[in-house]
């Protein structure tokens, strides 16, 4: 047996290139022998190609299973036992049996609680407050048991929910201007990090990481003032004496309480808070933890949507709680992939096992949706471990559901290491636009736009990527066929030039609404930054038909205030029968070189409830006046652009049918020969898939998922057919083979320059390889 000390283990696991290591010599030789002995030198899948000519899943899986403890950074199967345990509760839990149940369900990495939202320590702390009924070192026992069973360990730490500290020391609390203690969901009190609680936390870090062999620190409830409060329109500022003293010490000429009235004063205090309560505290925690365990991984609950880039640069990998859609597409995973980092993880939330709320097939679909996007999965267990429950202190049903959740994941995750996405359509993720909308107290609007774009683009069946704006370079953009700018209001001159040059060279651009009407300093432009590419000029923002939810806030956006109709363009043929509508304002445009695709049809009236002007029960219908060009198509150099003067992707939050149908149709018309495409027949939004090159570049891994079961709450409906097609010029496919859930050679057909594979009665989730005659290397 290899003997690995805790320090040695950490060093190995911190090294990304050696993320797995063998458990023993015998197993290593057995696996190496069965895989022709070349596994350690060649890319994994190619090395394990069997006489079928395709990677052998059974061998890959065997090698994966025998590879020993897998780093939290690299596993696709992490599990958390949520355990926010009130002071009344005890710990009559058979931890050994529970840990074995976790292992049996497929867990490779376990997250255990060192301090929960109640604020109690689960180990025998000398600096923190232990849970009043802690009868043994629960955390330490869990860590040891997990290691014995070959699982890596993550330390959960609740940073800014801590009831006991606030209840014991009200002067440590985060308070509002009226001095009221702040809490979340009427449950969790929030301590202020300017109070002595800060040193309390750092003391725990020293203790935990000097005592326990853990691989990762996961900080929960980090930056709650900014992520939870500010983004929902609430004040992110603490008004406790500690904060006030700290500010006044740093700013003797600018008293804390008096500076909130001006935007500059507000912004100054916001940045100061953000620096102290996010950047500085994270630096201090990392320093404390790594002073004891130099290579410990660090992660946060929250990804790039929650935290600024400087915070993201400090974490070992990106974790975000999932952004789900009704159609089951894992939008959050696509967003995280856009940061260009190899490892990203998303949670699959479960419900309490003792409630028996749903069948295991539902979280199974959610987990499958994550691996379809190559995200690492993380089952967040809702209270699976409870004293005396089911006789042994844990929910037997919950662990059975967890096992079913990973039914596909644990069989195919060996296929996923090192895969690279096939690129077709990119959506620009503009953090600058998000920041501009944050400043306007509209943080959610940008999420609606990005989520709406990613979802509708996925319906088109082509590979979809989110492209973080810091990655918008000529080289990166040049790898895509199409670029979508979903209501991207902020564009720098440099970004606009990169896009302009790319379109001129043959790219296809789709842009909407106030695209580029702000520069990088958020200064308004008088025209679109890409007006020449769009073929239209900006004239004005027409807002008079918008109703801001006077009657019922829930209706604010659902209220239709803009109508469009076809101008006879083939691109609008699908919508030619009548008008279509959406919420929000629209931009009046002046056409230059663009061709009119759709035009505005103005509403019959401007609704004015106070003066008894309204129509029927809903929004005023289309009237007799038109309002000029709404959508324009423009040839630009060798490329093309389609510009829409409406917030079409933002409006997807209400899921208008015409947007769901038209956007994918537009993409199909604009890019007629995509590099790859997957289409269910007949079409359903619930079946989606992805294309990734394997590590060797000799195969394309295609995964597909019929997620309808999640939407139907457990009822599965199969679909007749999935057609997978690739451009024969760019991907020279010589064969195809299904590898999960069954092994089966698939016929390939050539049709009009494209190579196709047709799957009849496809399973709910499947993985197959397309074999490439000419490998595509990174």
């Amino acid at each position, binding site marked *: 047996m290899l003997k690995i000390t805790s320090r040695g283990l950490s060093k190995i696991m911190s090294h990304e290139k050696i993320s797995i290591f063998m458990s023993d010599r015998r197993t290593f030789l057995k696996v190496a022998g069965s895989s022709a002995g070349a596994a350690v030198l060649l890319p994994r899948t190619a090395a394990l190609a069997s006489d079928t000519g395709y990677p052998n899943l059974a061998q890959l899986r065997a090698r994966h299973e025998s590879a020993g403890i897998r780093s939290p950074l690299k596993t696709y199967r992490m599990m958390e036992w949520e355990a926010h345990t009130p002071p009344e509760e005890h710990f009559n839990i058979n931890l050994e049996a529970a840990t074995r149940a976790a292992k049996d369900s497929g867990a490779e990495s376990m997250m255990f609680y060192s301090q929960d939202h109640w604020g109690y320590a689960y180990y025998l702390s000398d600096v923190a407050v232990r849970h009043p009924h802690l009868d043994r070192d629960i955390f330490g026992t869990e860590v040891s048991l997990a290691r014995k069973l070959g699982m890596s360990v993550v330390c959960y730490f609740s940073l800014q929910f801590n009831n006991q500290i606030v209840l014991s020391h009200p002067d440590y609390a985060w308070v509002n201007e009226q001095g009221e203690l702040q809490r979340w969901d009427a449950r969790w009190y929030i301590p202020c990090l300017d109070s002595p609680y800060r040193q309390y936390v750092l003391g725990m870090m020293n203790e935990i990481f000097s005592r326990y062999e853990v691989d990762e620190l996961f900080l929960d409830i980090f930056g709650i003032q900014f992520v939870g409060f500010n983004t929902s329109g609430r004040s992110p500022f603490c008004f406790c004496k500690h904060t006030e003293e700290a500010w006044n010490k740093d700013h003797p000429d600018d008293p804390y309480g008096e500076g909130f009235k001006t935007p500059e004063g507000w912004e100054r205090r916001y940045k100061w808070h953000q620096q102290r309560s996010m950047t500085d505290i994270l630096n201090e925690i990392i320093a404390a933890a790594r002073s004891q365990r130099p290579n410990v991984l660090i992660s946060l609950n929250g990804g790039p949507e929650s935290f600024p880039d400087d915070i993201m640069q400090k974490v070992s990998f990106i974790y975000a709680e999932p952004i789900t859609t009704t159609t089951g597409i894992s939008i959050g995973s696509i967003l995280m992939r856009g940061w260009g980092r190899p490892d990203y993880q998303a949670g699959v939330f479960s419900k309490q096992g003792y409630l028996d709320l749903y069948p295991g097939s539902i979280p199974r679909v959610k987990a499958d949706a994550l691996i379809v996007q190559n995200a690492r999965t993380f089952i967040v267990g809702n209270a699976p471990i409870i004293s005396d429950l089911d006789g042994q202190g844990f929910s037997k049903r919950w662990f059975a559901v967890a096992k079913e959740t990973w039914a596909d994941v644990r069989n195919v995750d060996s296929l996923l290491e090192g895969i690279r996405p096939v690129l077709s359509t990119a959506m620009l993720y503009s953090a600058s636009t998000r920041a501009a909308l944050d400043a306007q107290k509209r943080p959610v609007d940008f999420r609606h736009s990005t989520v709406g774009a990613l979802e509708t683009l996925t319906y088109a069946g082509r590979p979809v990527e989110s492209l973080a704006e810091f990655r918008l370079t000529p080289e990166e953009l040049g790898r895509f066929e199409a670029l979508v700018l979903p209501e991207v209001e902020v564009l720098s001159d440099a970004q606009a030039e990169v896009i302009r040059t790319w379109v001129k060279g043959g790219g296809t651009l789709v842009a909407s609404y106030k695209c580029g009407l702000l520069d990088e300093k958020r200064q308004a432009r008088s025209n679109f930054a890409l007006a020449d590419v769009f073929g239209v000029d900006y004239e004005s923002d027409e807002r008079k038909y918008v109703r801001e939810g006077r*009657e019922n806030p829930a209706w604010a956006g659902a209220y239709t205030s803009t109508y469009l109709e076809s101008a006879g363009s083939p691109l609008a*043929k699908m919508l030619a029968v009548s008008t279509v509508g959406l919420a929000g304002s629209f931009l009046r445009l002046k056409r230059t070189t663009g061709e009119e695709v759709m035009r505005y049809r103005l509403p019959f*009236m401007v609704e004015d409830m106070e003066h008894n*002007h*309204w129509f*029927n029960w809903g929004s005023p219908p289309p009237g007799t006046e038109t309002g000029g060009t709404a959508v324009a198509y423009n040839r630009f150099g060798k490329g093309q652009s389609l510009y829409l003067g409406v917030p079409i992707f933002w409006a997807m939050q209400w899921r208008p049918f015409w947007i769901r*149908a038209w956007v994918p149709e537009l993409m199909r018309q604009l890019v007629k020969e995509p590099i790859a495409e997957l289409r269910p027949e007949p079409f359903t939004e619930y079946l989606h898939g992805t294309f990734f090159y394997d590590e060797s570049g000799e195969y394309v891994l295609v995964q597909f998922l019929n997620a309808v079961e999640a939407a139907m709450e457990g009822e599965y409906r199969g679909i007749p057919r999935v057609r997978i097609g690739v451009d024969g010029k760019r991907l020279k496919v010589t064969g195809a083979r299904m590898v999960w859930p069954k092994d089966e050679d698939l016929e390939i057909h050539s049709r009009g320059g494209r190579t196709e594979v047709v799957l009849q009665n496809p399973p709910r989730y499947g993985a197959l390889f397309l074999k490439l005659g000419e490998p595509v290397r990174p």
Partner: protein
Amino acid sequence: MGQLGNRRLSRRNFLLSKTTGSSATGRDDATLHPAAVAGQAQTRMPRNARAIVAPNKTYSSMEWEFHTPPEEGFNINLKAAMAAAHDSGVQALMLYSQDHWGYAFYTSDVGVRHPRLADDFFGTEVRLAREEGMSAICYYSLQYNNQVVFNHPDWAWVDEQGVEQRRRMRWYLPCLDSPLASGR
């Protein structure tokens, strides 16, 4: 001869349309919204256009919700709309005589006519519906009546504080103890 909607087709074309499953309206399906195409497929069935079915016996009634503000005109091709209704499968059609705004859509001598009513709109609808082989239902909004309350605030239903009552910020309610009920 078969008849679908207001388009007369030759027997040959009618049979052709049935056997090929193509649209009986002669439209190019590719120009239609997908929902319209799907709906059309469900209604491709031969009907005896002349057999009027009573409202209490039909399984296919239709209402054209029509609460028309005073600003709105009536530039509507009723004949084509009737044909479209019939083509969609309607056997009984509900038509508005008085809407929530409180306007009569016929040339009433006792009710307040819609200010832009040029002729007997309701009466024309009834006649055309019958010509298309559909039975007609008279819709009458009883207790939403904006114009009555605007013109006779003392006819309004009011609360204890004397505040006029209305629904969803839109529709005022007259009181049935007022002269409204007697038509005075």
